[in-house]
């Protein structure tokens, strides 16, 4: 499925960086909104089975849009306003903890 902006002429002056690719966003977009409008379908893979996931509720309750945003793990992309230069990556499986992070 492809999302389309209702606003016919949005001002797309700013960008976030999705895994290295610049993605334009309009004033007021969430990270999820900007990525969906750009045709990004998979936001994360689950910690348990690795299945791909995309935003479902878009209101902060389903936790299916978790991403790594500016280095912070498991942020809800639908609750995070996009800002210029933000770095966004898919959450792949479980976030690291414990031994991986330990000296």
């Amino acid at each position: 499925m492809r999302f389309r902006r209702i606003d016919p002429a949005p001002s797309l002056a700013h960008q976030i960086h999705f895994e290295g690719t610049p993605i334009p966003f309009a004033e007021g977009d969430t990270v999820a909104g900007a990525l969906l409008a750009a045709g990004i379908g998979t936001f994360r893979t689950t910690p348990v089975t690795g299945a791909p996931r995309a935003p479902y509720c878009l209101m902060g309750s389903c936790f299916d849009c978790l991403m790594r945003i500016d280095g912070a793990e498991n942020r809800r992309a639908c609750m995070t306003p996009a800002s210029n230069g933000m770095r966004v990556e898919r959450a792949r499986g479980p976030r690291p903890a414990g031994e991986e992070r330990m000296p």
Partner: protein
Amino acid sequence: MTAGHDLAVIGGGLIGAAIAWGAARSGADVLLLDEGDIALRAARGNFGLVWLQGKGLGHPDYMHWSIRAGRLWPELARLLTEETGIDPEWRGGGGLNFCLSEADLAARREMIARTADAGGEIDIRLLDRAELRALAPGIGPEVLGASLSDLDGEANPLLTLRAFHTGVQRQGGTLRSNSRVQSLHPMAGGGFRIGLADGAELPAQRLVLAAGLGSETLAAQLGLTLPLRPERGQIVVTERVAPFLHHPTNTIRQTRDGTVLLGSSHEDVGFSTGTDIATIARLCNTGARLFPALAEARLMRAWGAVRILTPDGLPVYDGAPDHPGAFVVTCHSGVTLASVHALDLGPALARGRLGPAPQTMRSSRFALSPD
């Protein structure tokens, strides 16, 4: 007069459901009655440990009964999975009780010695920091060591409960929810009429009271003194993180899916199941002292649930002397003891006996010592 069910179990929490399943497996026609969502249900809010080390110090019967439960849990998990298709996610591998001070280490050393003196058939040893790091590399600098016991384990308490409920029905038993029992009427010539809050009356040959905190008033109708008090425990849950903890521990668990549970507090706040920030912060703090990487993990939710405690903290297994066929069971570690309740006690109760339940755990001990 209809004879009704062979056995009515009142209370569909971990204790009642385990007994009902065990009784149904042994051939009894079982009715399991449970109150609705408004009930206090420890079975749905607990920490999920099958915990033996340190249990029953000063009360060898309780120690041996608990250790037996630990030994039977793998069998219980296998049977539940086979018969219901629901895996209770039991995991053994040895339980760790962390020590953050010399005093903690001394207390664990004493616990180990007392367990050995009582003849406890359980291997418990004290690990120093280096040995512990081999099992749990992520421990923080304050952790001095841990006691490790071979039999401790953990289970998913919600799946365990669901497996019991499913199992009862698979065995031909009846599970009736939203059925609050209000009155118990012994019938002339044996058997009981069980009066529900909605006015229904159900006959049964025998009955087992396993209604958690709801058992106190019902037991009184059978002439049994069963003083129970609530004790709240709060538990905190984090987001899923990559597996870093492969053993059950006294204060922190990581589930198969990566979720981390931190728990649990001990609070005397009546029947409240609420949470408070100070307690949540303390639980998080302890978690981060044990595993500093957890400081980065996000908190997902917290809840409170109430434990069911007798004055001496020990279980009760008893029959009503004036009403043969009526029994009461309660304990504060219903996950741990689920295996003996299901595999030993359920079949015995179906035949009207307490079977292997220790004699020293009758309720008459409370009637004798008013406090």
